[in-house]
Protein backbone atom coordinates (compact mmCIF):
# COMPACT_ATOMS: atom_id res chain seq x y z
CA UNK A 1 0.00 0.00 0.00
CA UNK A 2 2.60 2.63 1.05
CA UNK A 3 -0.05 5.31 0.96
CA UNK A 4 1.37 8.63 2.18
CA UNK A 5 -0.61 9.75 5.23
CA UNK A 6 -1.25 13.48 4.99
CA UNK A 7 -2.64 15.56 7.82
CA UNK A 8 -6.11 15.10 6.37
CA UNK A 9 -6.28 11.54 7.70
CA UNK A 10 -5.24 12.56 11.19
CA UNK A 11 -7.29 10.79 13.82
CA UNK A 12 -10.62 10.72 12.00
CA UNK A 13 -12.29 8.89 14.83
CA UNK A 14 -15.64 10.38 13.97
CA UNK A 15 -15.28 8.95 10.50
CA UNK A 16 -14.43 5.42 11.68
CA UNK A 17 -17.15 5.19 14.20
CA UNK A 18 -19.76 6.48 11.76
CA UNK A 19 -18.38 4.54 8.82
CA UNK A 20 -20.68 2.35 6.80
CA UNK A 21 -20.01 -1.22 7.89
CA UNK A 22 -20.38 -2.28 4.28
CA UNK A 23 -17.26 -0.35 3.18
CA UNK A 24 -15.29 -2.91 1.19
CA UNK A 25 -12.10 -4.11 2.84
CA UNK A 26 -8.80 -3.05 1.29
CA UNK A 27 -7.69 -5.40 -1.49
CA UNK A 28 -5.91 -8.37 0.04
CA UNK A 29 -3.42 -8.57 -2.81
CA UNK A 30 -1.83 -5.18 -2.01
CA UNK A 31 1.80 -5.15 -0.79
CA UNK A 32 1.95 -6.63 2.73
CA UNK A 33 2.21 -4.30 5.72
CA UNK A 34 4.49 -6.73 7.54
CA UNK A 35 6.28 -9.54 5.83
CA UNK A 36 8.23 -12.32 7.59
CA UNK A 37 10.49 -14.46 5.47
CA UNK A 38 12.03 -17.35 7.36
CA UNK A 39 12.54 -15.18 10.43
CA UNK A 40 13.98 -16.51 13.70
CA UNK A 41 14.49 -14.85 17.04
CA UNK A 42 16.43 -15.73 20.16
CA UNK A 43 17.06 -13.74 23.34
CA UNK A 44 20.52 -15.25 23.60
CA UNK A 45 19.83 -18.76 24.79
CA UNK A 46 18.08 -21.22 22.49
CA UNK A 47 15.89 -19.96 19.65
CA UNK A 48 12.51 -18.74 20.92
CA UNK A 49 10.91 -18.45 17.48
CA UNK A 50 12.07 -20.09 14.24
CA UNK A 51 11.02 -20.36 10.61
CA UNK A 52 8.37 -17.68 10.64
CA UNK A 53 7.13 -17.03 7.12
CA UNK A 54 4.05 -14.91 7.07
CA UNK A 55 2.53 -11.85 5.40
CA UNK A 56 0.16 -9.39 7.04
CA UNK A 57 -1.89 -7.74 4.31
CA UNK A 58 -3.42 -4.29 4.73
CA UNK A 59 -6.94 -4.68 6.00
CA UNK A 60 -6.27 -8.09 7.52
CA UNK A 61 -7.34 -9.05 11.05
CA UNK A 62 -5.21 -11.45 13.08
CA UNK A 63 -5.34 -12.96 16.51
CA UNK A 64 -2.19 -14.29 18.12
CA UNK A 65 -2.52 -16.97 20.77
CA UNK A 66 -0.33 -19.40 22.60
CA UNK A 67 0.52 -20.30 26.18
CA UNK A 68 2.12 -17.81 28.52
CA UNK A 69 5.79 -17.44 27.65
CA UNK A 70 5.38 -18.84 24.13
CA UNK A 71 6.59 -15.64 22.46
CA UNK A 72 3.50 -13.58 21.61
CA UNK A 73 4.94 -10.35 22.91
CA UNK A 74 8.25 -11.16 21.27
CA UNK A 75 6.50 -11.68 17.94
CA UNK A 76 4.74 -8.32 18.24
CA UNK A 77 7.99 -6.61 19.15
CA UNK A 78 9.49 -7.93 15.94
CA UNK A 79 6.51 -6.44 14.10
CA UNK A 80 7.24 -2.91 15.33
CA UNK A 81 11.01 -3.16 15.15
CA UNK A 82 11.59 -3.11 18.91
CA UNK A 83 13.55 -6.30 18.30
CA UNK A 84 15.55 -7.25 15.23
CA UNK A 85 15.37 -10.82 13.91
CA UNK A 86 18.40 -12.96 14.66
CA UNK A 87 17.91 -14.63 11.27
CA UNK A 88 15.76 -14.24 8.19
CA UNK A 89 14.28 -11.26 6.42
CA UNK A 90 11.65 -9.03 7.99
CA UNK A 91 10.08 -6.13 6.08
CA UNK A 92 7.83 -3.46 7.53
CA UNK A 93 6.00 -1.44 4.86
CA UNK A 94 8.37 -3.10 2.38
CA UNK A 95 11.48 -1.75 4.13
CA UNK A 96 13.88 -4.35 5.55
CA UNK A 97 14.22 -3.67 9.30
CA UNK A 98 17.92 -4.43 9.26
CA UNK A 99 18.43 -1.39 7.03
CA UNK A 100 16.65 1.00 9.42
CA UNK A 101 18.56 3.50 11.56
CA UNK A 102 17.11 4.87 14.81
CA UNK A 103 15.34 7.74 13.09
CA UNK A 104 13.97 5.33 10.51
CA UNK A 105 12.47 3.23 13.31
CA UNK A 106 11.01 6.37 14.91
CA UNK A 107 9.26 7.35 11.70
CA UNK A 108 8.03 3.82 11.14
CA UNK A 109 6.44 3.83 14.60
CA UNK A 110 4.20 6.67 13.50
CA UNK A 111 2.54 4.27 11.07
CA UNK A 112 2.08 1.52 13.66
CA UNK A 113 -0.12 1.81 16.74
CA UNK A 114 1.05 -0.37 19.61
CA UNK A 115 -0.71 -1.39 22.83
CA UNK A 116 1.96 -2.69 25.19
CA UNK A 117 1.14 -5.50 27.58
CA UNK A 118 2.28 -3.31 30.48
CA UNK A 119 0.78 -0.02 29.40
CA UNK A 120 3.22 2.77 30.07
CA UNK A 121 2.43 6.47 30.12
CA UNK A 122 4.03 9.81 30.83
CA UNK A 123 2.91 10.20 34.42
CA UNK A 124 3.27 13.98 34.46
CA UNK A 125 0.79 14.50 31.63
CA UNK A 126 -2.98 14.12 31.78
CA UNK A 127 -4.74 11.13 30.26
CA UNK A 128 -5.88 13.26 27.32
CA UNK A 129 -2.34 14.50 26.68
CA UNK A 130 -1.04 10.95 26.85
CA UNK A 131 -3.58 9.72 24.36
CA UNK A 132 -2.72 12.65 22.09
CA UNK A 133 1.02 11.98 22.41
CA UNK A 134 1.48 10.44 18.96
CA UNK A 135 -0.09 13.58 17.47
CA UNK A 136 2.14 15.83 19.57
CA UNK A 137 5.30 13.98 18.62
CA UNK A 138 4.40 14.09 14.95
CA UNK A 139 3.48 17.79 15.25
CA UNK A 140 -0.09 17.16 14.13
CA UNK A 141 -2.12 18.42 17.08
CA UNK A 142 -4.58 20.79 15.43
CA UNK A 143 -8.18 21.60 16.36
CA UNK A 144 -9.63 18.72 14.35
CA UNK A 145 -7.33 16.31 16.11
CA UNK A 146 -8.51 17.62 19.45
CA UNK A 147 -12.16 17.05 18.54
CA UNK A 148 -11.37 13.52 17.49
CA UNK A 149 -9.54 13.01 20.78
CA UNK A 150 -12.63 13.89 22.79
CA UNK A 151 -14.73 11.49 20.80
CA UNK A 152 -12.21 8.69 21.15
CA UNK A 153 -11.90 9.19 24.91
CA UNK A 154 -15.67 9.04 25.19
CA UNK A 155 -15.80 5.79 23.22
CA UNK A 156 -13.33 4.00 25.47
CA UNK A 157 -15.15 5.34 28.53
CA UNK A 158 -12.47 7.77 29.70
CA UNK A 159 -14.31 11.05 28.99
CA UNK A 160 -14.73 11.74 32.71
CA UNK A 161 -11.09 10.86 33.46
CA UNK A 162 -9.45 12.92 30.70
CA UNK A 163 -7.72 15.29 33.13
CA UNK A 164 -6.55 12.60 35.54
CA UNK A 165 -2.89 11.56 35.68
CA UNK A 166 -2.18 7.99 34.50
CA UNK A 167 -1.19 6.72 37.97
CA UNK A 168 -4.69 7.61 39.11
CA UNK A 169 -6.30 5.29 36.58
CA UNK A 170 -7.56 1.81 37.32
CA UNK A 171 -5.96 -1.12 35.53
CA UNK A 172 -8.70 -1.36 32.94
CA UNK A 173 -8.72 2.39 32.40
CA UNK A 174 -5.01 2.24 31.65
CA UNK A 175 -5.55 -0.43 29.04
CA UNK A 176 -8.27 1.61 27.40
CA UNK A 177 -6.08 4.72 27.39
CA UNK A 178 -3.27 2.68 25.82
CA UNK A 179 -5.60 1.45 23.09
CA UNK A 180 -6.85 4.97 22.45
CA UNK A 181 -3.27 6.20 22.15
CA UNK A 182 -2.46 3.40 19.71
CA UNK A 183 -5.29 4.28 17.33
CA UNK A 184 -5.37 8.10 17.62
CA UNK A 185 -3.38 8.68 14.43
CA UNK A 186 -5.36 5.96 12.60
CA UNK A 187 -2.15 4.10 11.84
CA UNK A 188 -1.75 1.64 9.00
CA UNK A 189 -1.19 -1.23 11.42
CA UNK A 190 -2.42 -1.75 14.96
CA UNK A 191 -0.68 -4.26 17.23
CA UNK A 192 -2.33 -4.88 20.60
CA UNK A 193 -0.86 -7.09 23.32
CA UNK A 194 -3.62 -8.42 25.63
CA UNK A 195 -5.66 -5.21 25.26
CA UNK A 196 -8.60 -6.66 27.19
CA UNK A 197 -6.78 -8.52 30.00
CA UNK A 198 -8.06 -6.12 32.66
CA UNK A 199 -11.47 -5.04 31.40
CA UNK A 200 -14.87 -6.63 31.80
CA UNK A 201 -16.76 -8.34 29.00
CA UNK A 202 -18.90 -5.36 27.98
CA UNK A 203 -15.91 -3.08 27.70
CA UNK A 204 -13.90 -5.67 25.79
CA UNK A 205 -16.73 -5.80 23.21
CA UNK A 206 -16.61 -2.02 22.91
CA UNK A 207 -12.86 -2.07 22.35
CA UNK A 208 -13.22 -4.87 19.83
CA UNK A 209 -15.79 -2.82 17.93
CA UNK A 210 -13.34 0.05 17.68
CA UNK A 211 -10.66 -2.23 16.28
CA UNK A 212 -13.12 -3.82 13.86
CA UNK A 213 -14.11 -0.41 12.54
CA UNK A 214 -10.51 0.55 11.96
CA UNK A 215 -9.96 -2.76 10.23
CA UNK A 216 -12.91 -2.08 7.97
CA UNK A 217 -11.18 1.16 6.96
CA UNK A 218 -8.26 -0.87 5.72
CA UNK A 219 -5.99 -0.94 8.75
CA UNK A 220 -4.20 -4.18 9.54
CA UNK A 221 -4.96 -5.34 13.09
CA UNK A 222 -3.21 -7.96 15.19
CA UNK A 223 -4.33 -8.81 18.73
CA UNK A 224 -2.34 -11.06 21.05
CA UNK A 225 -4.71 -12.58 23.57
CA UNK A 226 -5.45 -15.70 25.55
CA UNK A 227 -9.12 -14.80 25.80
CA UNK A 228 -10.83 -17.33 23.56
CA UNK A 229 -14.27 -15.77 23.97
CA UNK A 230 -12.92 -12.52 22.53
CA UNK A 231 -11.67 -14.40 19.48
CA UNK A 232 -15.02 -16.10 19.06
CA UNK A 233 -16.86 -12.81 19.31
CA UNK A 234 -14.61 -11.26 16.67
CA UNK A 235 -14.85 -14.19 14.30
CA UNK A 236 -18.59 -13.70 14.13
CA UNK A 237 -18.03 -10.19 12.77
CA UNK A 238 -14.90 -10.29 10.64
CA UNK A 239 -12.85 -12.73 8.66
CA UNK A 240 -10.06 -13.08 11.24
CA UNK A 241 -7.10 -15.39 11.02
CA UNK A 242 -5.90 -16.96 14.29
CA UNK A 243 -2.16 -17.50 14.63
CA UNK A 244 -0.93 -19.86 17.29
CA UNK A 245 2.58 -19.99 18.67
CA UNK A 246 3.56 -23.50 19.62
CA UNK A 247 6.88 -25.31 19.49
CA UNK A 248 8.69 -22.13 18.51
CA UNK A 249 6.59 -21.90 15.34
CA UNK A 250 3.83 -19.51 14.35
CA UNK A 251 1.04 -21.56 12.80
CA UNK A 252 -2.35 -20.64 11.44
CA UNK A 253 -4.84 -22.27 13.76
CA UNK A 254 -7.55 -24.40 12.25
CA UNK A 255 -11.28 -23.92 12.42
CA UNK A 256 -11.42 -25.44 15.90
CA UNK A 257 -11.41 -21.98 17.42
Amino acid at each position, binding site marked *: MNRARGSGTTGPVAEWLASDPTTPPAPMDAAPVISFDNVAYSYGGGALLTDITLDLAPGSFHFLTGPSGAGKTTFLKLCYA*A*LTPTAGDLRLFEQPVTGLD*RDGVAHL*RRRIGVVHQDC*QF*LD*HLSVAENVA*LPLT*VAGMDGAAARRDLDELLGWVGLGHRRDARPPELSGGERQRAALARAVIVSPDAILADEPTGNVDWDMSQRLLTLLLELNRMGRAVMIATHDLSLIRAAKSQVQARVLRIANRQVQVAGAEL
Partner: protein
Amino acid sequence: MTGGVARILRAVRGDAASDRVVPPTGFTVRLTLFTAAAMAFLAVFALALSLAAGRLADRWGDELARGATLRISAPADQMDRQVGAALRVLETTPGVTDVRALSEAEQRELLAPWFGPDLPLDRLPIPQLIAFSETAEGYDPDGLRLRLQAEVPGAVLDDHRRWRRPLVAAATGLRILGWSALALIFGALAAMVTLAANAALAANAQVIAVLRLVGATDDYIAGAFVRRFTLRALCGAAAGAAIGLAAVALMPDTGDAAGVLTGIGFRGWHWLWPLAVPALAALTALLATRAAARRVLGSLA
Protein backbone atom coordinates in the same frame (compact mmCIF):
# COMPACT_ATOMS: atom_id res chain seq x y z
CA MET B 1 31.68 21.98 11.99
CA THR B 2 29.11 24.60 10.90
CA GLY B 3 26.61 21.77 10.60
CA GLY B 4 27.38 20.89 14.20
CA VAL B 5 26.91 24.49 15.29
CA ALA B 6 23.61 24.70 13.45
CA ARG B 7 22.45 21.53 15.17
CA ILE B 8 23.50 22.90 18.53
CA LEU B 9 21.66 26.15 17.89
CA ARG B 10 18.60 24.25 16.76
CA ALA B 11 18.83 22.17 19.91
CA VAL B 12 18.98 25.25 22.13
CA ARG B 13 16.29 27.21 20.32
CA GLY B 14 13.68 24.99 21.82
CA ASP B 15 10.37 23.40 21.09
CA ALA B 16 7.64 23.95 23.64
CA ALA B 17 5.99 20.62 22.84
CA SER B 18 9.05 18.49 23.41
CA ASP B 19 9.90 20.45 26.56
CA ARG B 20 6.51 19.59 27.99
CA VAL B 21 6.72 15.97 26.97
CA VAL B 22 9.81 15.35 29.10
CA PRO B 23 8.82 15.44 32.77
CA PRO B 24 10.22 17.96 35.20
CA THR B 25 13.57 16.42 36.11
CA GLY B 26 13.36 17.64 39.69
CA PHE B 27 16.37 16.97 41.77
CA THR B 28 18.87 16.40 39.02
CA VAL B 29 18.05 19.73 37.42
CA ARG B 30 18.15 21.46 40.78
CA LEU B 31 21.50 19.78 41.33
CA THR B 32 22.73 21.19 38.04
CA LEU B 33 21.52 24.66 38.96
CA PHE B 34 23.27 24.48 42.29
CA THR B 35 26.46 22.93 40.94
CA ALA B 36 26.70 25.52 38.20
CA ALA B 37 26.24 28.31 40.72
CA ALA B 38 28.85 26.94 43.11
CA MET B 39 31.32 26.29 40.33
CA ALA B 40 30.82 29.72 38.79
CA PHE B 41 31.35 31.29 42.19
CA LEU B 42 34.61 29.40 42.58
CA ALA B 43 35.58 30.12 38.99
CA VAL B 44 35.25 33.85 39.55
CA PHE B 45 37.50 33.59 42.59
CA ALA B 46 40.05 31.46 40.79
CA LEU B 47 39.97 33.94 37.93
CA ALA B 48 40.56 36.86 40.28
CA LEU B 49 43.39 34.97 41.92
CA SER B 50 44.99 34.13 38.60
CA LEU B 51 44.78 37.67 37.34
CA ALA B 52 46.10 39.09 40.61
CA ALA B 53 48.94 36.60 40.63
CA GLY B 54 49.67 37.51 37.04
CA ARG B 55 49.83 41.20 37.94
CA LEU B 56 52.07 40.42 40.88
CA ALA B 57 54.41 38.26 38.85
CA ASP B 58 54.68 41.01 36.26
CA ARG B 59 55.37 43.65 38.88
CA TRP B 60 57.92 41.61 40.74
CA GLY B 61 59.53 40.57 37.51
CA ASP B 62 59.61 44.12 36.13
CA GLU B 63 60.07 46.62 38.89
CA LEU B 64 61.29 45.18 42.09
CA ALA B 65 63.54 42.44 40.84
CA ARG B 66 65.04 44.43 38.00
CA GLY B 67 66.01 47.31 40.30
CA ALA B 68 69.56 46.95 41.59
CA THR B 69 71.88 49.36 43.44
CA LEU B 70 75.56 50.09 43.48
CA ARG B 71 77.03 51.54 46.68
CA ILE B 72 80.24 53.56 46.45
CA SER B 73 82.21 54.30 49.60
CA ALA B 74 85.23 56.43 48.99
CA PRO B 75 87.19 59.31 50.52
CA ALA B 76 85.46 62.60 49.76
CA ASP B 77 88.08 63.71 47.24
CA GLN B 78 87.83 60.52 45.18
CA MET B 79 84.05 60.25 45.34
CA ASP B 80 83.14 62.21 42.22
CA ARG B 81 85.72 60.40 40.11
CA GLN B 82 84.61 56.97 41.26
CA VAL B 83 80.91 57.80 40.76
CA GLY B 84 81.69 59.00 37.24
CA ALA B 85 83.65 55.83 36.48
CA ALA B 86 80.85 53.64 37.89
CA LEU B 87 78.23 55.40 35.79
CA ARG B 88 80.31 54.88 32.66
CA VAL B 89 80.86 51.20 33.45
CA LEU B 90 77.16 50.65 34.05
CA GLU B 91 76.10 52.52 30.94
CA THR B 92 78.30 50.34 28.78
CA THR B 93 77.17 47.08 30.39
CA PRO B 94 74.70 45.18 28.19
CA GLY B 95 71.43 44.48 29.99
CA VAL B 96 71.70 47.52 32.25
CA THR B 97 69.41 50.51 31.80
CA ASP B 98 68.11 53.58 33.66
CA VAL B 99 71.39 54.27 35.44
CA ARG B 100 71.02 57.16 37.87
CA ALA B 101 72.94 58.46 40.91
CA LEU B 102 70.58 59.14 43.80
CA SER B 103 70.23 62.81 44.67
CA GLU B 104 70.96 64.09 48.15
CA ALA B 105 67.25 64.48 48.87
CA GLU B 106 66.57 60.88 47.88
CA GLN B 107 69.39 59.59 50.07
CA ARG B 108 68.10 61.68 52.95
CA GLU B 109 64.63 60.25 52.53
CA LEU B 110 65.95 56.71 52.56
CA LEU B 111 67.87 57.34 55.76
CA ALA B 112 65.25 59.37 57.60
CA PRO B 113 63.67 56.41 59.39
CA TRP B 114 66.99 55.80 61.04
CA PHE B 115 68.55 59.15 61.67
CA GLY B 116 65.65 61.54 61.59
CA PRO B 117 65.04 64.08 58.85
CA ASP B 118 67.82 66.51 59.80
CA LEU B 119 70.80 64.30 59.09
CA PRO B 120 73.87 66.42 58.09
CA LEU B 121 74.57 64.43 54.94
CA ASP B 122 77.31 66.75 53.76
CA ARG B 123 79.24 66.34 57.02
CA LEU B 124 79.07 62.54 57.01
CA PRO B 125 81.18 60.07 55.02
CA ILE B 126 78.04 58.59 53.60
CA PRO B 127 78.30 56.37 50.55
CA GLN B 128 76.76 57.39 47.25
CA LEU B 129 74.03 55.11 45.88
CA ILE B 130 73.54 54.49 42.17
CA ALA B 131 70.25 52.89 41.12
CA PHE B 132 69.85 51.07 37.82
CA SER B 133 67.39 48.72 36.19
CA GLU B 134 67.88 45.54 34.30
CA THR B 135 66.40 44.89 30.88
CA ALA B 136 64.34 41.83 30.24
CA GLU B 137 67.42 39.98 28.99
CA GLY B 138 69.22 40.71 32.23
CA TYR B 139 72.96 41.37 32.75
CA ASP B 140 75.87 39.28 33.87
CA PRO B 141 76.50 40.19 37.54
CA ASP B 142 79.86 38.39 37.74
CA GLY B 143 81.21 40.19 34.68
CA LEU B 144 80.00 43.52 36.04
CA ARG B 145 81.66 42.85 39.39
CA LEU B 146 84.97 42.10 37.74
CA ARG B 147 84.88 45.29 35.67
CA LEU B 148 83.91 47.37 38.73
CA GLN B 149 86.67 45.81 40.81
CA ALA B 150 89.17 47.04 38.30
CA GLU B 151 87.82 50.55 37.70
CA VAL B 152 85.83 51.51 40.84
CA PRO B 153 87.51 49.91 43.88
CA GLY B 154 84.97 51.36 46.38
CA ALA B 155 81.86 49.97 44.63
CA VAL B 156 79.67 47.24 46.12
CA LEU B 157 77.02 45.72 43.80
CA ASP B 158 73.77 44.94 45.56
CA ASP B 159 72.16 42.37 43.24
CA HIS B 160 68.56 41.57 44.14
CA ARG B 161 68.61 38.36 42.15
CA ARG B 162 69.17 36.17 45.12
CA TRP B 163 65.65 36.89 46.33
CA ARG B 164 64.16 37.70 42.95
CA ARG B 165 64.09 34.18 41.58
CA PRO B 166 61.93 32.49 44.25
CA LEU B 167 59.52 35.43 44.25
CA VAL B 168 58.90 35.40 40.53
CA ALA B 169 58.71 31.61 40.62
CA ALA B 170 56.13 31.83 43.38
CA ALA B 171 53.99 34.37 41.55
CA THR B 172 54.19 32.37 38.34
CA GLY B 173 53.32 29.22 40.28
CA LEU B 174 50.37 31.00 41.76
CA ARG B 175 49.21 32.06 38.34
CA ILE B 176 49.51 28.49 37.06
CA LEU B 177 47.66 27.31 40.16
CA GLY B 178 44.85 29.75 39.42
CA TRP B 179 44.47 28.68 35.81
CA SER B 180 44.63 25.00 36.65
CA ALA B 181 42.03 25.59 39.35
CA LEU B 182 39.87 27.14 36.63
CA ALA B 183 40.39 24.16 34.36
CA LEU B 184 39.64 21.85 37.27
CA ILE B 185 36.47 23.74 38.11
CA PHE B 186 35.15 23.50 34.57
CA GLY B 187 36.17 19.86 34.42
CA ALA B 188 34.28 19.24 37.65
CA LEU B 189 31.27 21.12 36.28
CA ALA B 190 31.31 19.02 33.11
CA ALA B 191 31.61 15.82 35.15
CA MET B 192 28.79 16.79 37.48
CA VAL B 193 26.46 17.90 34.70
CA THR B 194 27.22 14.67 32.84
CA LEU B 195 26.42 12.62 35.92
CA ALA B 196 23.29 14.64 36.64
CA ALA B 197 22.11 14.34 33.04
CA ASN B 198 22.84 10.62 33.11
CA ALA B 199 20.87 10.28 36.33
CA ALA B 200 17.98 12.24 34.80
CA LEU B 201 17.99 10.14 31.66
CA ALA B 202 18.28 6.89 33.57
CA ALA B 203 15.43 7.92 35.86
CA ASN B 204 13.33 8.64 32.78
CA ALA B 205 13.89 5.35 31.00
CA GLN B 206 10.12 4.77 30.97
CA VAL B 207 9.43 8.20 29.52
CA ILE B 208 11.97 7.57 26.80
CA ALA B 209 10.45 4.15 26.08
CA VAL B 210 6.99 5.67 25.72
CA LEU B 211 8.26 8.45 23.47
CA ARG B 212 10.15 6.00 21.26
CA LEU B 213 7.02 3.85 21.08
CA VAL B 214 4.91 6.70 19.70
CA GLY B 215 7.55 7.62 17.14
CA ALA B 216 9.66 10.37 18.73
CA THR B 217 13.15 10.69 17.24
CA ASP B 218 16.30 10.76 19.36
CA ASP B 219 16.87 14.43 18.57
CA TYR B 220 13.38 15.27 19.80
CA ILE B 221 13.90 13.46 23.10
CA ALA B 222 17.49 14.53 23.68
CA GLY B 223 16.66 18.13 22.77
CA ALA B 224 14.35 18.57 25.72
CA PHE B 225 16.96 17.30 28.17
CA VAL B 226 19.79 19.25 26.60
CA ARG B 227 17.84 22.50 26.62
CA ARG B 228 16.80 22.03 30.19
CA PHE B 229 20.27 21.31 31.52
CA THR B 230 21.91 24.02 29.42
CA LEU B 231 19.43 26.62 30.58
CA ARG B 232 19.79 25.61 34.21
CA ALA B 233 23.59 25.65 33.96
CA LEU B 234 23.43 29.11 32.42
CA CYS B 235 21.09 30.47 35.08
CA GLY B 236 22.99 28.83 37.92
CA ALA B 237 26.36 29.98 36.64
CA ALA B 238 25.08 33.52 36.10
CA ALA B 239 23.83 33.66 39.68
CA GLY B 240 27.03 32.11 41.03
CA ALA B 241 29.24 34.43 39.01
CA ALA B 242 27.22 37.45 40.17
CA ILE B 243 27.61 36.44 43.80
CA GLY B 244 31.29 35.73 43.22
CA LEU B 245 31.80 39.14 41.64
CA ALA B 246 30.03 40.83 44.52
CA ALA B 247 32.22 38.95 46.98
CA VAL B 248 35.39 39.90 45.09
CA ALA B 249 34.29 43.51 44.92
CA LEU B 250 33.57 43.53 48.65
CA MET B 251 37.01 42.16 49.60
CA PRO B 252 39.12 44.76 51.45
CA ASP B 253 41.75 46.06 49.06
CA THR B 254 44.83 46.98 51.06
CA GLY B 255 46.92 47.76 48.04
CA ASP B 256 50.39 46.41 47.54
CA ALA B 257 51.35 46.18 51.17
CA ALA B 258 49.45 43.04 51.92
CA GLY B 259 50.75 40.73 49.27
CA VAL B 260 48.74 38.56 46.98
CA LEU B 261 45.33 37.57 48.19
CA THR B 262 44.24 40.90 49.53
CA GLY B 263 45.13 42.41 46.21
CA ILE B 264 42.58 40.15 44.58
CA GLY B 265 40.06 41.82 42.34
CA PHE B 266 39.62 42.76 38.74
CA ARG B 267 41.22 45.77 37.10
CA GLY B 268 39.96 47.51 33.98
CA TRP B 269 38.83 45.25 31.17
CA HIS B 270 39.54 42.23 33.34
CA TRP B 271 36.01 42.77 34.67
CA LEU B 272 34.85 41.25 31.39
CA TRP B 273 36.46 37.89 32.16
CA PRO B 274 33.93 36.72 34.76
CA LEU B 275 31.12 37.44 32.29
CA ALA B 276 32.49 34.59 30.18
CA VAL B 277 32.02 32.13 33.05
CA PRO B 278 28.23 31.57 32.65
CA ALA B 279 28.58 31.26 28.88
CA LEU B 280 31.34 28.71 29.30
CA ALA B 281 29.32 26.84 31.94
CA ALA B 282 26.33 26.68 29.60
CA LEU B 283 28.50 25.43 26.76
CA THR B 284 30.00 22.81 29.06
CA ALA B 285 26.54 21.70 30.15
CA LEU B 286 25.31 21.57 26.57
CA LEU B 287 28.14 19.37 25.39
CA ALA B 288 28.04 17.16 28.49
CA THR B 289 24.27 16.63 28.29
CA ARG B 290 24.36 15.99 24.56
CA ALA B 291 27.02 13.34 25.00
CA ALA B 292 25.11 11.75 27.89
CA ALA B 293 21.79 11.81 26.02
CA ARG B 294 23.31 10.30 22.93
CA ARG B 295 24.88 7.52 24.95
CA VAL B 296 21.77 6.70 26.99
CA LEU B 297 19.40 6.86 24.03
CA GLY B 298 21.69 4.65 22.00
CA SER B 299 21.68 2.06 24.77
CA LEU B 300 17.86 1.92 24.93
CA ALA B 301 15.94 0.00 22.31
